[in-house]
């Protein structure tokens, strides 16, 4: 039958017309708007169809926010083998408090479907004074060593921290299989090397946090990173290793790569040394699409977290990864960036006499096992600057004449 012969009921029974009524498809909207213009004689019939459609503005039976939340909690609780639930666990713990404080704000945050599920930690990214390992039961172990070493055994229950052994006991009431989620938090001035239960080695740079399970149950091996880390991932074809940061998801099978994702920096990136990784990030725009970049060795994916755009460059990977061996390597790098790295590594503040000093380009190698003063002396010999100590933790760089 032709549309022009349609009765009111014919319109209401037409699936394509339904899309126009619901305003849910832009092609349908364009088509029917055009049709109505071209067939003014159908206006009355269509008006009647719209009128009947509008009868079905029904009374809504709704759940309260609490009920919605508790229902989901019950669904999760019934999962015996928890797969990737540790991140949502953190989120739900925080949000539960939110619900009681402000239902309206909770609603606005929680119901935005295309927003990332991870809370934006950047807002409360405070680093503690000393490096710590925070266990799933909430207790924390202070890491005495500035360059600490943490090693999990295969079961994930036994930890060797520098020279001490810690046993993670099961809490009463929680099943053996429940995944224990721990965090290593490294403030400025320290770094750490963590060996996870699957044998993956992670070097954590200063100002970083690694959230990880003590044992990888489930179909993936998933960790969350703030800051910077170098990964040497143990090969496991059946369980991809996934690094989640605030803006990106990096998926690997067994390989060596470096990720930097400092919450206070706009640029986040992944550098591949060997193997193969896929970097996923949200591309900003009308419909927040997820983009995927596959890297080859000696390639770097840089993502601008504010603009949402990305770039892949060919680089010398050792430039970006030498820090794990205590060496900074750079080629024609802005002095600004070098000084920032030194600030993080030594936990001091470097002020600049004028803003142009930072744009000097500098190439070379710095051995970070030296003291900061020695490092600054080396820089002084390379670039026309001078330095002086202002007080306990502050240094000043001035222009040399």
């Amino acid at each position: 039958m032709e549309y022009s012969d349609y009765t009111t009921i014919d319109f209401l029974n037409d699936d394509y017309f339904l899309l126009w009524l619901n305003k849910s498809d832009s092609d349908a909207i364009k088509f029917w708007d055009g049709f109505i213009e071209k067939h003014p004689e159908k206006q009355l019939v269509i008006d009647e169809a719209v009128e009947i459609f509008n009868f079905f503005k029904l009374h809504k039976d709704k759940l309260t926010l609490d009920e919605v939340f508790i229902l989901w909690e019950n669904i999760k609780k019934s999962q015996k083998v928890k797969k990737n639930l540790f991140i949502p666990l953190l989120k739900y713990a925080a949000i539960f408090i939110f619900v009681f404080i402000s239902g309206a704000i909770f609603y606005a945050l929680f119901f935005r479907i295309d927003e990332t599920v991870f809370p934006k930690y950047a807002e409360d990214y405070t680093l503690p004074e000393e490096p710590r390992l925070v266990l799933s039961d909430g207790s924390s172990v202070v890491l005495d060593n500035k360059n600490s070493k943490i090693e999990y055994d295969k079961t994930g229950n036994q930890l060797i921290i520098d020279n001490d052994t810690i046993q993670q006991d099961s809490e009463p009431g929680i099943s053996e299989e429940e995944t224990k989620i721990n965090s290593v938090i490294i403030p400025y001035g320290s770094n750490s090397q963590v060996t996870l239960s699957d044998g993956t080695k992670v070097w954590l740079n200063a100002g970083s946090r690694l959230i990880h399970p003590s044992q990888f149950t489930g179909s993936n091996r998933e960790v969350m990173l703030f800051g910077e880390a170098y990964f040497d991932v143990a090969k496991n074809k059946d369980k991809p290793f996934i690094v989640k940061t605030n803006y990106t998801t990096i998926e690997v099978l067994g390989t060596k790569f470096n990720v930097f994702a400092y919450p206070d920096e706009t640029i986040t990136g992944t550098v591949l040394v060997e193997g193969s990784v896929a970097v996923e990030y949200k591309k900003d725009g009308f419909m927040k699409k997820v983009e995927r970049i596959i890297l080859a060795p000696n390639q770097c994916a840089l993502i601008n977290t504010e603009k949402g755009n990305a770039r892949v460059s060919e680089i010398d990977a050792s430039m970006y990864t030498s820090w794990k061996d205590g060496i900074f390597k750079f080629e024609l790098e802005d002095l600004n960036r070098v000084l920032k790295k030194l600030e993080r590594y030594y936990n001091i503040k470097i002020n600049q006499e004028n803003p142009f000093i930072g744009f000097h380009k500098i190439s070379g190698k710095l051995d970070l096992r030296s003291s900061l003063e020695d490092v600054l002396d080396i820089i002084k010999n390379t670039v026309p600057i001078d330095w002086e100590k202002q007080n306990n933790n502050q240094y000043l760089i001035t222009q040399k004449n």
Partner: protein
Amino acid sequence: MEKLFPENNLILWHKFLKGDDHAISKIYISYINELFDYGCKLSSDRDLIKDCIQDVFISLMKNRRNLSESIHLKGYLFKAVKRKVISELIKKRNYEEVIQSDDYRFEIKIEKQIHEGNTNDIQTEKFVAVQTAIDSLTSRQKEALYLRFYGGMKHKEIASILNLSIQSSRALVSRALKKIKELLEERKNGLNQILFLFFKQTKHVL
């Protein structure tokens, strides 16, 4: 929001099937209120509906390896919830609400519309007229109209949920709409008749 980007939810479904639990939580948030509302049309027992939705999601997560990739997500979830609710009501022998799996009560209530320009009396009259017309439909007709005009579903999904052929679904919706139209016409005519008689009377008196 689901109406604008239904494709996004299918992407979430695929992610869920591959093992992403965040995806299923987003799907849950996306549909929970609609599923609950639908459940409440089948039964007034809120706790029962909540339990049924819970069981549906638990079952989805347990059986995700056996689930199909290409589905209409909303229709699929609605059908699953309905199946669970009806079976629970049968177990409870709640004969007021369910006699057997294809014979059950479906109640819908329209919301009173506030339109500017119309007086309160005209609103109420319209409201009562439409609600009365809808109440006179069979449960199946009500459910079909609910799924189509409140749930925005095409005949393919309605047919699947009601266990009909697509043709039967069209016929069902058609009959239901015809009935509503007739009842509303009758009511209008009925009113006109009363007014007409009234004037006739008064003329006489004068």
